[in-house]
């Protein structure tokens, strides 16, 4: 099939529709507006529903209702709105409901600005809400990958009965790239025997995260923990770029990773053995990606559009065996390839820090 040129935000919408999502509840916020605009048009075409909620808090709870009633459902927002969803996300995780939440990260804290950033990494991977829970976090780096990962996102949500977050930034959302959409397939949504859809002659079903007896809540927590362990084992995803023989390994995701690819290219041109690990799942963090390189690599340079958040996961993974350096831009500023190359050269050979 022919390629078409598409914005990242629109690709999220189209990817969701093609993954069988028929319900969107959300509240407008920059820089993800093209997504609701797209879905407001597109969902009715496929018999779906775009409903603008009165707030992000309402949106995430509509998602809770729709997911509990058995639908493939999603919402989308950015920083401030995602913060408002934290209680709801914690409930979704607690009640084990599948859904997809998009966060097009912007500059923070507070109102900050609408420029691209990655400073919601902690919130996404550690759980910005209360309690012990985890959300699977996917970080695409191109418009084509958005299309592909939306299917993955809905599938993972269903497989593990867990919220999945797709984390991008304003650049990914507004950038246009060619995409191959492929045939539109009839999606079969896995059966949901647990959904509360009215008894209709069957057993009573309950959607809840309340376990008033501590012994029971502990059991529930341990059950969730088991699930999370399984996800850590099975679902780590990453891309490797020029890792062969790399002495310095860059680690970056999303837009920062694209810039880092350019950095790797330039460095390799200049004969510097630099490679890149691009986490695609931010949680579970792709620790497996590090095992094969840790012996050869002399160090790691984490590049983020933040003051340094993923760098903690890299440090936890490397666990003191190699130095881990950090380079970041923040507040909506992008790392410039030339600056990162300079940083690489400073570190190269281990003269860093």
């Amino acid at each position, binding site marked *: 099939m022919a390629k078409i040129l598409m914005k990242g935000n629109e690709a999220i919408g189209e990817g969701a529709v093609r993954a069988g999502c028929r319900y969107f509840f959300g509240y407008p916020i920059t820089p993800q507006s093209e997504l609701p605009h797209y879905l407001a048009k597109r969902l009715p075409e496929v018999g779906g529903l775009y409903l603008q909620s009165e707030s992000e808090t309402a949106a995430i709870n509509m998602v809770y209702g729709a997911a509990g009633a058995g639908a493939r459902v999603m919402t989308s927002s950015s920083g401030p709105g995602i913060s408002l969803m934290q209680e709801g996300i914690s409930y979704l995780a607690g009640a084990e409901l599948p859904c997809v939440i998009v966060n097009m990260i912007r500059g923070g804290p507070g109102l900050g600005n609408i420029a691209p950033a990655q400073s919601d990494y902690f919130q996404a991977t550690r759980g910005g809400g209360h309690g012990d829970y985890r959300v699977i976090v996917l970080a695409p780096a191109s418009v084509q990958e958005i299309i592909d990962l939306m299917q993955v996102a809905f599938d993972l949500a269903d497989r593990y009965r867990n919220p999945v977050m797709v984390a991008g930034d304003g650049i990914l959302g507004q950038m*246009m790239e060619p995409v191959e959409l492929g045939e539109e397939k009839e999606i079969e949504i896995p059966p949901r025997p647990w959904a509360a859809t009215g008894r209709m002659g069957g057993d009573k079903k309950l959607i809840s995260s309340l376990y008033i007896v501590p012994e029971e809540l502990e059991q529930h927590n341990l059950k969730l923990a088991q699930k999370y362990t399984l996800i850590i084992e099975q679902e780590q995803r990453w891309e490797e770029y020029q890792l062969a023989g790399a002495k310095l390994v860059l680690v970056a995701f999303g837009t920062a990773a694209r810039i880092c690819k*350019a950095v790797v290219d330039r460095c390799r041109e200049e004969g510097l053995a630099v490679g890149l690990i691009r986490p695609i799942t931010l949680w579970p963090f792709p620790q497996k990606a590090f095992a094969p390189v840790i012996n050869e690599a002399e160090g790691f340079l984490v590049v983020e559009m933040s003051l340094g958040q993923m760098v903690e996961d890299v440090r936890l993974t490397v666990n003191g065996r190699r130095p881990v350096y950090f380079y970041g831009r923040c507040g909506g500023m992008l790392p*410039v390839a030339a600056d990162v190359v300079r940083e690489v050269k400073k570190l190269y050979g281990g003269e860093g820090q």
Partner: protein
Amino acid sequence: MYQAILIAGFGGQGVLSTGQLLAYAGMLEGKHVSWIPSYGPEMRGGTANCGVTISDYPISSPVVTEPTSLIVMNRPSLEKFEGSVVPGGLILVNSSLIDIKATRKDVRVYYIPANELAEELGSSKVANNVILGALLELTGVVTPDAVEKSLREVLPPHRHDMIPLNRRALEAGAALVHRSAAARAG
């Protein structure tokens, strides 16, 4: 082939859609392309620019911080972005709207009275295409045919009657730099 083109001007001057057109054409020619917008602090009315990358190889970074070519549609954009162009690169200045000159000596600079040429053709709306024609002529990044084909896919059918005019604008731009190149050579 690797071209990173930055197109900058006031919001409302159509710089974003011109960039999209260019990217589309690149895609139709089987190139790797990306288009990325950037807005000024103002919600609207302020400055706007977009970066288009067209390459034979997969594009690592879509962010155009060091353009190989720069198209500027207003004075602040020239002042802001002139310095970012790679040495040996290209700057196309819409001299209908910009009354200053570029200061870089290590790049090629062309002054194109795009609005005037466009009005000569019958509509100031095709000024962007005039300057795009010049870019195509000077860089060969895509062919005018690909741009015309893109227009056919991008414009709604009831506006396809605009396509010949756009094509003429591309050609006018091309002719101008052709001439001026000839003049230089001469």
